[in-house]
């Protein structure tokens, strides 16, 4: 097991955006308790593109759920952007999550009865971010960024998987969160579409977003800056890749808040 960066270094480094300390997660649902995470320590700096890599059942989804506050640690602490996530109640978590983290799921999870633009506006609506009159314009801008403008008024059922995932990414960006957490965002897509989606993430990193992405795809894992290999509930290996060349067609964020 390795600690991804030491506590001392973490304390001294103001750019640490996300810190998990001694996180343990045990599930009691079966006949024998199952330990999904064992004493995980993880620190992510602002602007990093981190990949959590591992086989099915290794604990990578549980780990990202700790970061998003979707699940709670059995013990240990989770601090994101200075907020002790593990100490928040469900309601506080919802508000915090809406403003701080954009979540992207493997199966897109768009609400089937809302159109593309309505799905993107939904987080703004819940968190009351941006003036109500501004929201459609911002949502449209984000949809344009993911190249879905011509589908803005369609329902999710009319879109392909790749298109739905683009919309899900636009939705994750709705409240301009500093962190994007994506759980197997390309796992349900063909390789060409997966590449396009990954490209979107790269552009977001260029825009100083911090991305934590779960994947079991080795090709994708090779393209992230920092790849953390998860096995049996532990981070067993860390690889840091050299920074990419900044591309000319930099992804531009929507209108400022």
């Amino acid at each position, binding site marked *: 097991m390795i600690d991804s960066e030491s506590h001392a270094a973490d304390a001294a480094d103001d750019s640490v955006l996300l810190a998990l300390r001694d996180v343990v997660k045990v599930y009691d649902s079966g006949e024998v308790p199952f330990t999904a995470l064992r004493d995980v320590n993880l620190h992510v700096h602002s602007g990093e593109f981190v990949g959590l890599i591992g086989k099915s059942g290794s604990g990578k989804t549980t780990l990202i759920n700790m970061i998003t506050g*979707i*699940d709670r640690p059995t013990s240990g602490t989770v601090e994101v952007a200075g907020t002790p996530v593990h100490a928040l109640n*469900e309601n506080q978590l919802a*508000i915090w999550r809406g403003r701080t983290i954009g979540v992207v799921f493997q199966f897109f999870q768009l609400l*089937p009865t*809302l159109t593309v633009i*309505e799905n993107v*506006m939904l987080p703004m609506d819940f968190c009351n971010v941006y003036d109500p009159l501004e929201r459609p314009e911002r949502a449209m801008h984000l949809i344009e960024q993911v190249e879905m403008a011509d589908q803005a008024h369609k329902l999710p059922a009319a879109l392909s998987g790749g298109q739905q995932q683009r919309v899900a990414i636009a*939705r994750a960006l709705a409240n301009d969160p500093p962190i994007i957490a994506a759980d197997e965002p390309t796992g349900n897509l063909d390789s060409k579409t997966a590449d396009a989606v990954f490209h979107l993430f790269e552009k977001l990193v260029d825009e100083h977003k911090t991305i934590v992405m779960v994947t079991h795809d080795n090709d994708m894992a090779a393209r992230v800056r920092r790849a953390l290999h998860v096995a049996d509930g532990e981070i067993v290996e860390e690889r840091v890749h050299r920074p990419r060349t900044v591309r000319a067609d930099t992804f531009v964020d929507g209108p400022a808040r």
Partner: protein
Amino acid sequence: MITPRWRKVFRDLSSHRFRTLLVVLSIAVGIFSIIVVLGGRGILMREFETVFGDSRPPTATMHVDIADDSVIDAVSRYPGVEAAEGRRSVPLRFTVGTPEADVPSSGWSTAQVWAVCDFEGQSVRRFTPEDVVSWPPKTGEILLEQSARTVGDYRIGDVLTVESPSGKRARLRVAGFAHDINAFPATFVAMSTGFISMETLAMFDEPCEYNTIALLAEDPSITRPQASRLAANVRDDVVAARGVRVMQTNVPEPGSHFLGDIFKAVSLLLLALGVMALLLSGFLVVTTVQALMSQQVKQVGIMKAVGGRASQITWMYLAMVLIYGVLAVAVGLPSGIVAGRWFTEYGAGLLNFRITSYAPPVYVSLLGAAVGLAVPLAAAIIPVRLGTRMPVVRALTATGITAARFGHGLVDRVLGLLRGLPRPVALSLRNTFLRKGRLALTLTTLVMASAVVMSVLTVRSSILATVDEVDVWQFDAQFYLARTENGPRALREAARSRGVATAEGMLDYPATLKRQDGTEGEGVSVIGLPPDTPFVAPQLEQGRWLEAGDTSALVVNADILKEEPEFALGSTVTLSILGIEEDWQVVGVVSGGMMGPVAFAPIGHMDAILQAGGGINRVFVTTEHHHATAQEQAARELERRFEDAGIPVAATQTQIEQRDTIASQLGILVTFLAIMAVLLALVGVIGLTGTMTINVMESTREIGVMRALGASHGAIYNIFITEGVVIAFMAWVLGAVLSWPASVALTGMLSSAMNLPLQYDFSWFGVGFWLVAVLFIAVLASLLPAFRASQVSVRDAIAYE
């Protein structure tokens, strides 16, 4: 601008049209049944009071030998009397058409005809024109009470040949129909009521003077003892003082109608079933909302994952439920009012009164709206809170609010042990018990509906058993003679008549209880009979029956005791029969028998005090054969014989006709009960359909897997229909068990409301009938969901969220 989350609410409603329809229908049927049942009750009670009050029912009615206008004037001027009116009541027989003069009147219909002086200026016991060509009727015309139309096909313009008790005939034209709420509906007594002018009465050589005086007290809140005192004073100071003989004075309970007991029972029944409908619809709503929430759990998780707070999401779903409620009120309220209109019209028809306003009482509409809006909201709060407070990780992975897991618990283990069942049947059985919370709610609704339906059928069977039980008369035909006739001679004629096996004569006179304080009690019929008569077999409740050697012994029925406690066993009472006062000893009490207040006395003693000289005015016969036709033929034959022998008959009744008369009164209850049963069964059907549909929706992924494995349309149908049938069967078993105490309670309530001990008769027919019905319903309720299931494509099913 509508924000996306509210758009989601509206979009969810419109995009899941079938689910919306089902939820709305579930709530609406509850509102509907409440409006129909409680609204119907409210309207009937209000309108009955209005119509009855407007008729100015008499405080007291005196039956006199003969009185003229001067007597009526004097009565109406008496202190405490607001109005008085004299009429002449004559029993007439009639037939439609113009038969030859020598055709005997046997088999003709009977009518109680009132000769009225002033149709426009009626001051007491008012009747109103309903459908008339002339008002008041001209000389030679008759108005029939509207309920006559239920026993005969009478039309305006029909010519009736009418015969008076003295045998005088005249032809009268039907000038129309009137409504008299104070008249016994023809349906109940197999006798019509008619109204003619005094001039028409003269056509029958009847004296144009009055034989009844109805008076109305000034004080609207007069009590019965005060009314009796007033009537006694009027009798002594005015009527008797003018030489008029008063045969009987009737003082009913002020404001009470003769159908009051039946009405009270109907009202109670409606109230009890209204409460049941309320409970049932509440359960239905809880089931539906819970199912709805379990379907939405994943979406709740997504919304929370993108920043939705529990309170925001809770309001979204409560708003959705509120919209369901508003739609359900919009459907249930007007349809309930329309059906309630039909229901009350029908009910009013049975009770023979007209409805002037069909508007349900405000409280019923408010209750209906509250059930539609508040009950779903209240029902939704717990499931919505459970759903919205569920941790996101569970919501995103759960299949429902209560994660369905099979294999835990005793029932699951027992089902798991069942071997040798075809795989689809085993699957259906296990699916049934998969979501135990939902199953419990659905079962509760269906068990309650089943218990009520089976209870209602038991009450019906008890009522019918009571009709048999209360029928104290053992005759095949009875004859009311127009006057007291020589007994041996009349019985001789009877013995010679074809088809008659045995015959017996009795004396039947109206009598009045003379109370110690000089007032008169309720009128009773005293029947003088041989103590060992085979024609009367009453159920003895207290004391003993008449014995040979009894003189002034009297056996009274329970109906007398209800009105006059002075007739208690062992007491001595003074009765006035034909103005002759005599003391009697009450030696026994028999059941009411739906005969009204009746007392039995030894015929010998009665003959002696009335100096009847062996006379009789009522003849009972048994016939050689007892079926309806034999009874009818023998009765007509004897009636003709009596006519030929110069023994005029006022009315004839066969045993089957008499039984029908009693049954028709209790039949009102049976009819109302049947309507209620259908309504509650409907709630059950919609509940089961809803559950089955939601089960199908939740099983979409499983259906896809089964289809991928090669399940045919038929196999999918079988699985869901079997599941519905299993639920229905369980509801039937539990409902049948529950229907026993429920029907005992319902029968008891009705018995006490009607003052008629109902003979409890558990309806095994009802249990069997409901088994067939509920299984049929289950198949029907599962068909549509099963059809939807069979249409699921593998691709859609696997992609189903």
